[in-house]
């Protein structure tokens, strides 16, 4: 297998490891994976991503002049542009640096970084899409809960503290206006610890 003329030669085992390392590193690059998963580059996004891995590999092995990280950054940048993605988060520099160090280590026969990547890849990856979905659901719940908790926090401490004891008569007028709207709500469920669960307004609107 012919490997670059001027650059130091890579053994076959090293090329194999380097190829695997490139693929694993790209699979952990969140911007690229999001672009492929959401097809930001069109229907051919996954093919473009695979082509990028091949391009990087051939650049490492088949370029005759000394390797500069700027050229590698250009390759990554143009690949992301072909996927209609403008990465301004510095991830291109980071990935390029990791690729260069991986290549240098493969030249020396040191495959530790690739092994680390393999272990990191076996761990479950962060799913951006699921997080977004969960955040949307949580945001809906949180808004209502915050409103309820804010209402409850001001008086619930009084309610909790005073509930085991007999409620002092001077606190009754303060508690009455708070309890009335909750008692009048037909969907109120009394919780054991003095909290009152109020159904969210959205469900009420949909059911009506």
């Amino acid at each position, binding site marked *: 297998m012919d490997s670059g003329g001027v650059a130091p030669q890579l053994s076959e085992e090293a090329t194999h490891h380097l190829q695997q390392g490139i693929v694993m590193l790209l699979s952990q690059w969140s911007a690229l994976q999001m672009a492929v998963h959401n097809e930001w580059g069109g229907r051919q996004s996954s093919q473009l991503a695979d082509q990028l891995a091949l391009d990087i590999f*051939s650049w490492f092995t088949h370029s005759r002049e000394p390797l500069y990280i700027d050229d590698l950054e250009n390759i990554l940048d*143009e690949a992301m*542009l072909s996927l209609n993605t*403008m990465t301004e*988060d510095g*991830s291109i520099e980071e990935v390029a640096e990791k690729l260069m160090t991986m290549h240098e280590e493969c030249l020396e026969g040191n495959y530790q970084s690739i092994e680390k990547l393999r272990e990191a890849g076996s761990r479950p990856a962060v799913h951006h899409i699921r997080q977004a979905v969960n955040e949307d659901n949580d945001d809906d719940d949180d808004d209502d809960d915050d409103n309820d908790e804010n209402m409850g926090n001001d008086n619930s401490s009084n309610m909790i503290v005073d509930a085991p004891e007999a409620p002092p008569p001077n606190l009754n007028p303060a508690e009455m206006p708070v309890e009335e709207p909750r008692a009048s709500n037909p969907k109120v469920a009394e919780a054991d610890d003095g909290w009152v669960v109020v159904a969210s307004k959205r469900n009420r609107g949909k059911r009506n």
Partner: protein
Amino acid sequence: MTFKRRNGGRNKHGRGHVKFIRCSNCGKCCPKDKAIKRFLVRNIVEQAAVRDVQEACVYDTYTLPKLYAKMQYCVSCAIHSHVVRVRSRTDRRKRDPPQRFRRRDDMPKPGQAPRPAGGAPVRT
């Protein structure tokens, strides 16, 4: 009169009308297929302020979140903000991303599926 581009500057085939979208920069109405669409991946905290935020952070290792946005530019804004560039008459016909030199004689991945004969991926 000559045609500057084969597709007329937009991606409308088999339709009479597409709805317009508003440019995310200037608000101009632009047909959805003609707009230049880019996905933006940015850090929420700028590079200069990352160190300050990390020093003030309560948690030891906190990965700063990123901002994902879809930008839709009208042609004027895209050119003005250097998203796209004016190209020469021969360069206008190029639809592929620049091809890197590639050795075809030895396939890097043995057993890989053969590349499409057209070479260039067709943009929908």
